């Protein structure tokens, strides 16, 4: 009997609580008219960024493609004749597969790969969801303003010998016995 009364009261209280919700404001964000706030670190569309010097950052190491769970990144490595820098001959992301997980951004050693707060990528044709390098590349360094991979890496390129990078010591001749 006590259970009965208790459950009845509890039901009535539920009904009353819900009735009081007539006077609360709706939580809905009226999306297309009213844009939601997206944090600067929001993971959305992917861009390829450039060095502070205006050269492309990506060195075609394929780490992003290896990290990508749905395998939606495809690229081809090439070496530039004039200075020996590596670059992607083509770089293709299939956004209809991408799940915006950001693993590629974490894998990228050169900070070339960056996800930006934009998720509005609608297309009527599926092929249009495949972005090529020219669609991905932006003019600027993105989130990391000063980082330049070749200036800190040991790789030798035109105009920078081994040992000349920042925080790098001159190479040691391991065949020499002189102290």
């Amino acid at each position, binding site marked *: 009997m006590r259970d009965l009364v208790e459950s009845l009261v509890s039901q009535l209280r539920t009904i009353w609580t*819900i009735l009081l919700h007539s006077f609360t404001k709706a939580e809905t964000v009226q999306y297309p008219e009213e844009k939601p706030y997206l944090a600067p670190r929001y993971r959305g569309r992917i861009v390829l960024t450039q060095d502070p010097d205006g050269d492309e950052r990506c060195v075609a190491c394929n780490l992003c493609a290896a990290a990508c769970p749905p395998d939606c990144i495809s690229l081809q490595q090439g070496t530039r004749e004039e200075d020996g820098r590596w670059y992607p001959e083509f770089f293709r992301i299939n956004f209809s597969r991408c799940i915006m997980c950001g693993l590629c951004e974490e894998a990228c050693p050169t900070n070339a790969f960056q996800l930006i707060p934009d998720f509005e990528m609608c297309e009527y044709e599926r092929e249009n969801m495949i972005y090529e390098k020219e669609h991905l590349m932006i003019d600027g360094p993105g989130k990391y303003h000063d980082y330049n991979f070749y200036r800190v890496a040991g790789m030798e390129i035109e105009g920078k010998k081994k040992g000349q990078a920042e925080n790098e010591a001159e190479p040691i001749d391991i065949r020499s016995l002189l102290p």
Partner: protein
Amino acid sequence: MSDFWIIVFAISVMLGAVGGAAVTTWFERRLLGLWQDRYGPNRLGPFGIGQVAADMIKLLTKHDWVPPFADKWVFIFAPTAIVVAMLLGFAVVPFGPGLQIIDLNIGLLFFLGMTSLAVYSVLLGGLASNNKYALLGGLRSAAQMVSYEVFMGLSLMGVVMLSGSFSMADIVESQRDGWYCFSQFLGLFVFVIAAIAESHRLPFDLPEAEHELTAGFHTEYSGMKFAMFMLGEYLGLILISCMITTLFFGGWLAPFSLTFIPAIIWFSLKTFLVICFFILLRCAIPRPRYDQLMSLGWKIMLPITLINLVITGAVALWIAGA
């Protein structure tokens, strides 16, 4: 009324009921939205009322498919039955003084009979689909209806005792000196619960139970036939609300002798409030388990009904003797 006007009136009641059911689908979603702190359909037309038309077009143009494994004729018949039964139920509803399609002297029994017929629709639909989920839904509805039918009728007997008639018009007239919602509050309580179970709406929509049975008895239905089931459900909601208004809230009688407002407006207003209350119940209360539903019916509702019946009978006799 002459024969001609009765036909006109009957057709307008039918169109009104179907139109009302269509609008209720939209209204329910808006109201659920309000109580769940969201908006509900609000894009098409003012307040999203165009959603009704959009849904209708969608359902009418959908592929009307009969699965090859279904029992074809029963499958087609089932959704029609519920709509026909519910619409017939409207025949005895007194919308105002004299505004009634037919004043049967067993009006109440006719109403109970029609709502019971609607059960067959659910049952046959579940059976004919030849689908496990549908069969389970049909099974549940059979058990639920059988147990709730019992005291749905009994809970109204108190009203019949006090008014001394099965005729709807007489019942309304006899409430001139006090609505039955006060003297028969136990009856009202039981009838509301039985009515929800009868029209298988949330929280007692166990035959449908989207979360466990995908869509229960109408899992295999699509397009127009599915729309018929939905129409039947909403017609049932409106019919039950009309009945609660008529039997317990004085029908078209005006409260506080505010008779300058026409009777039909009072009737609609009361019915509207009862519909809102049903939607509130849907919003607030979760669906009970199947065995809980049955034990609630047999162990609590039935005794309450019987107690109500005995007390009402005793009081009625005492008043008659005094």
